[in-house]
């Protein structure tokens, strides 16, 4: 999860540096993103996370702030991801009856989504002539960052590149998930949530939670199971090939 774990180690340094501006800017940018998203009736393209990222980046460029200064200041927010992911146990627990009754759906979703997530990215990159290291860094792109980094290291990808690709995948899935569900005429919140969690981990789950608690719970479940299973299967497949 922690995309900048080296930076979160600097929490004390961040406190000493008074990161009010970086944290404040992040909160305000996300608030603006949420308002815009709501004004548009939760239009998928106006994803609050995406809007906030664009606003902060524009602000950083406009004020000539080094990216490192922002990232160090905002590392407290990045750290909050840890407790937040632990709290995903709550919607899972609340929906446990529905989850238990959907074993087949979850198994089928994973059996389809896990290999497709890896093979589609690897296949496209290979067909377009990407370097082997880039292809390996792409392989775990649908998995939550904390697990993806470990997989990338094991199979010989570039960890930093993998983090970048994982975040890009998450945002893509959060934006495209609801659009594709509508195109495919899929309304079952269990299917929409599970799909978004498998394809686009935590960022997809954040979006699924906006749809409903059922979608959010299934998304968190999809993210967790896909992460753990990919961590076991991908290095094995890589060794076999």
């Amino acid at each position, binding site marked *: *999860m922690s*995309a900048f774990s080296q930076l979160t180690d600097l929490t004390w340094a961040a406190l000493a540096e008074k990161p009010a501006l970086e944290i404040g800017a*992040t909160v305000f*940018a*996300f608030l603006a993103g949420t308002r815009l998203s709501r004004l548009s009736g939760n239009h998928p393209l106006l994803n609050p*996370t995406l809007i*906030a*990222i664009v606003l902060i*980046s524009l602000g950083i460029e406009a004020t000539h702030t080094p*990216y490192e200064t*922002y990232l160090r200041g905002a*590392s407290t*927010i*990045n750290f*909050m*991801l*840890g*407790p*937040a992911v632990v709290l*995903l*146990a*709550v919607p899972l*627990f*609340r929906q446990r009856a529905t989850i238990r*009754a*959907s074993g087949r759906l979850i198994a*089928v979703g994973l*059996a*389809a989504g896990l290999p*497709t*997530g890896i093979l*589609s990215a690897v296949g*496209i*990159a290979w067909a*377009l*002539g*990407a*370097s082997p290291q*880039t292809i390996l860094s*792409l392989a775990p*792109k*649908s998995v*939550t*960052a904390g697990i993806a980094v470990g997989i990338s290291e094991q199979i010989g990808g570039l960890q930093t*590149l993998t*983090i*970048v690709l994982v*975040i890009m*995948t998450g*945002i893509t899935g959060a934006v495209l998930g609801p659009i*594709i*569900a509508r*195109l*495919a005429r899929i309304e079952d919140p*269990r*299917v929409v949530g*599970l*799909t978004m969690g498998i394809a*686009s981990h935590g960022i997809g789950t954040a979006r699924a939670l906006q749809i409903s608690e059922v979608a959010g719970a299934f998304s968190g479940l999809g993210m*967790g199971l896909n992460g753990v299973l990919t961590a076991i299967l991908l290095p094995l497949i890589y060794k076999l090939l």
Partner: protein
Amino acid sequence: MLEQIARVMFWLCVGEIAARSGLLPLPAPVTGLILLYAELAVRGKLPDDLGILADRVLQFLGMLFVPAGVGVIAYLDLLKAEAVPILVAVIGGTAITLLVTAIVASRLGTARTTIEKQKLDELEELARDVSI
């Protein structure tokens, strides 16, 4: 409420210890999620404050990814050399994954439930007819 924050941090810390000691190859938050779920399953009940805490925090889960997303922009140089294959693989690959997973899961995964639902509906209709 403080008690619930402590509960969450406790399981996160257990996960962190498991990760740092090399006991489990999972990141601390994933282990923490599993352990908190296990604790709730054993208790069989969700403490009210924990439910409120989760609802409040998860409402802005999307905000917690903003610094990482901004970091991506800082590292865009990494992509320059192979921008086209990477962008097509990420966007195209994610779209394909979403489409395939959603269609397969809804066609094969919910088939039985739909049939069961139809049966239930039929039974309900029968029951209504009988009562009339």
